[in-house]
């Protein structure tokens, strides 16, 4: 019996030892991602994990590197005077990974038309704006817009070019969407490896990638789905992964204490706002909105949230293009709040102690619940009842569907998808965009609509800055919302990883092609 046990232990030990020799491979980066990559079709998929995959498997016309959005497949570009016609020259050495065919103007035209035809989530950038795309040469392409659109090139970071031949061969009845959902047809720095749904996704570096590789660049990476923050941190500390995203603020010290790890904490454009319903209920009254805005104690937020946040100096982050200095933003001042309530159409209700407001936030999400409790307490001090209304996220989205169901106050995060004020203001404050959670203010102001439309069409940057400045002044004056803070993006690394450059447009998305690995475990 003892011999049998001995033999079994021996076999097990040998198996484990032999296994460890099997797993030793090249510079393969193991990434603990908080989210699945459920769709890699550039025409339909878009979120931070999908973007990480798309930026690895495909090339876009422009790319966000650090704070800048720079040409990628494009070598030069030129817009006409009113920014309605754009001519672009393409690089001539980019090839698709699956068949080696060139990434040329026809492929760009095909990709654009396919995206517009399918009409998926990324399309909002171009729908109704791009009228025509044509090849003016083998590597020259012209975009004709239905109206002037100055930030056009900024949107092209999400226009990934697909191989027309591959898509046509797998076109089906949905323009190849079923095929591209799980299979790449790109020219990016990585090609697909194992694709285990709900578990992990493997990417192999393309050795002769046209864009080149940094010294000590990675040979590939595996995106491992880890939904739990504690699992991400423990895997990183145990050496099972090299990078983990969306690290909780409470874990940062623990990771920084480790000599083998570091955490990148960068203030981005991920903006938290209390959106007031400007059309219905007490919050439709500008003085009630002003009162509520003055009842929030902004300065104490970093302390009560115990998080790395930057208080907003106005409707947008100060480091986002187009910021207007010197805005008269509301500060915590309960006396002023009382004055505004007394001047409001709801003064009688307020004096009778019957003025009530609902505050909607994501159930059990402390970053939204705690500011609500703070505001509730402050409002109670001045005789306003605020009801905390927790909701699941889909319910919150639904509540923003129309004015009638829009809450008095709702806590919403927004992230501009390109580096232009248009990305921040148009979808939130233009009256044509009601119906989305971004526009849960239900704001309607003819002057603001006019300015936002005009700024889109204006090619001169200084003139545009003036327009966006006026928009900000109006938004603050009308207390359309209470602009709270921006939250930092947190990504943790093993010290053997280098090459990461934070981009505020992709605050938690790594550009894998720029990463390096030296002596990793």
């Amino acid at each position, binding site marked *: 019996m003892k011999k049998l046990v001995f033999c079994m232990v021996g*076999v*097990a030990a040998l*198996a*484990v030892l*032999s*296994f460890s020799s*099997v*797993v030793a*491979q090249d510079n*393969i980066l*193991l990434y603990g991602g908080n989210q*699945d990559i*459920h*769709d890699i079709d550039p025409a*339909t998929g*878009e979120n931070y994990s999908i973007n990480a995959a798309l930026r690895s498997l495909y090339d876009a016309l422009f790319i966000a590197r650090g704070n800048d959005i720079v040409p990628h497949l494009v070598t030069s570009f030129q817009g006409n005077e009113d920014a309605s016609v754009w001519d672009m020259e393409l690089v001539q050495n980019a090839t698709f990974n699956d068949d080696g065919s060139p990434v040329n103007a026809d492929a760009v035209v095909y990709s654009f038309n396919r995206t517009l035809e399918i*009409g*998926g*989530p*990324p*399309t*909002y950038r171009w*729908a*109704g704006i791009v009228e025509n795309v044509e090849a003016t040469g083998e590597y020259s392409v012209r975009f004709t817009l239905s109206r002037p659109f100055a930030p056009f090139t900024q949107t092209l970071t999400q226009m990934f070019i697909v191989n027309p031949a591959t898509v046509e061969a797998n076109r089906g009845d949905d323009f190849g*969407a079923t095929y591209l*959902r*799980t299979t790449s047809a790109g020219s990016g720095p990585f090609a697909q490896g*194992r694709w*285990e*749904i*709900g*578990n*992990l996704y493997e990417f192999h570096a393309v050795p002769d990638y046209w864009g080149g590789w940094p010294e000590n660049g990675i040979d590939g990476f*595996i995106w*491992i*789905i*880890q*939904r*739990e923050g*504690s*699992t991400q941190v*423990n*895997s990183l500390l*145990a050496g*099972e992964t090299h990078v983990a995203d969306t690290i909780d603020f409470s874990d940062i010290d623990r990771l920084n204490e480790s000599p083998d790890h570091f955490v990148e904490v960068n203030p981005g454009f991920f903006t938290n706002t209390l959106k007031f319903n400007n059309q219905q209920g007490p919050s439709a009254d500008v003085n009630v909105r002003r009162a509520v805005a003055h009842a929030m104690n902004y300065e104490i937020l970093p302390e009560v949230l115990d998080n790395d946040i930057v208080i907003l100096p106005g409707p947008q982050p100060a480091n986002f293009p187009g910021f207007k200095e010197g805005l008269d933003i509301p500060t915590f001042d309960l006396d002023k709040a009382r004055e505004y309530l007394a001047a409001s159409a709801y003064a009688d209700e307020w004096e009778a102690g019957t003025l009530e407001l609902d505050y909607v936030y994501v159930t059990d999400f402390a970053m939204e619940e705690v500011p609500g409790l703070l505001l509730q307490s402050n409002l109670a001090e001045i005789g306003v009842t605020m009801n905390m209304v927790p909701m*699941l*996220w*889909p*319910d919150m*989205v*639904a*509540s923003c*569907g129309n004015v009638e169901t829009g809450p008095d106050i709702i806590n919403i995060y*927004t992230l501009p*998808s390109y580096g232009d004020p248009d990305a921040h203001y148009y*979808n939130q404050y233009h009256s044509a*965009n009601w*119906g*989305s*959670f971004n526009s849960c203010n239900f704001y309607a102001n003819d002057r603001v609509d006019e300015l936002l439309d005009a700024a889109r069409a204006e090619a001169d940057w200084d003139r545009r800055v003036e327009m966006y400045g006026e928009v900000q002044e109006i938004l603050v004056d009308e207390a359309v919302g209470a602009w709270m803070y921006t939250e930092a993006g947190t990504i943790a690394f093993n010290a053997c990883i280098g090459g990461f450059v934070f981009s505020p447009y992709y605050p938690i998305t790594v550009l894998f092609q720029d990463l390096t690995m030296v002596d990793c475990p």
Partner: protein
Amino acid sequence: MGAHGNPVDHSTNATMNIYIYVLRRLLLVIPVLLGLSLITFSISRLVPGDPVGLAAGPQSTPEIRERMAAEFGLDRPIPEQYINYMAGVLQLDFGRSLYTKRDVNIELQARIPATLELTLAAIIFASTIGIPLGIVSSLHQNKPPDHVSRLLTLFFVSFPSFWLAMIFQSALGVYWDITPVAGRFPRLALPPQRVTGLLSIDSLLAGDLTAFFSTLHHIALPAFVLSLGALASITRITRASMLEALNNESVRTERSIGIPWALIVMKYVLRNAFTATFTIISLEFGWLMAGAVLVEAIFGWPGLGGYIVDASLNNDFQPIMGVTLVYGVIFSTVNIITDICYGLIDPRIRFG
């Protein structure tokens, strides 16, 4: 003798009875699943929320949202949606996820084996530890082994599995580096060729002992953590049933005629007590599958747990329906198997 003078074949009759019994139970599963589908469908459609708006993205235009709703048939009246859905289910087509756009069938095929393997491993842990612990506890009633056993089971029942999972993960995975922190298989290694989807079985079928031991290495901790609640229940039920059987007069008789104590316990007492234990094991199997959601999340286990959580958070109807129906089928199957096993364990039980 039979009516025509032929001997009655009791074993053939018994086999026929089992077949008829199984057939009847299988037929009963149909209304159960129909009811389950109707309830789940109604709840998923009645709860507030805008899954189309969520799936279409924050900046989607009304046109994009309308197009998506039409694509997924969500612009049709709800009764029509249900009929269309069930027509698909009858052809084993669980539809397409609104959020991931992937076929639910593909997702289920990818994930069910992982959850099933984890649950099976957990129930094996719970049974192989829980039954002996219950026996020892009952044989030493109110003595130190009994106290220790009861204290342990109280501990396991009282602490939430996700908390224990995090503690064990940190201790064994990070500080002592004994078990992997997360995952089902080493990420840099290729898993064995898929036959059943259960990695332990597939690695044995492939004759790959290395992969087999690696699979055991990965499943050990999550299965152990998942098993703890069931282990406690099995221990307590085994103990209680054993005590009841031990106090039976037949045991005193068997002892008085000199049958060895070990034989009495293993052959007579345990067999009598095991029906209740077996019931709790089959019930626990269902609970463990459902309870695996949290343990799967913490150990990065690619099973149904993460899928159903994502689907619920996004009001994604089809995956919710698909997973619910799959759970319904598994529960029903386990119940039928349990009932059949009763007859094998306890000859007094007859099918009819």
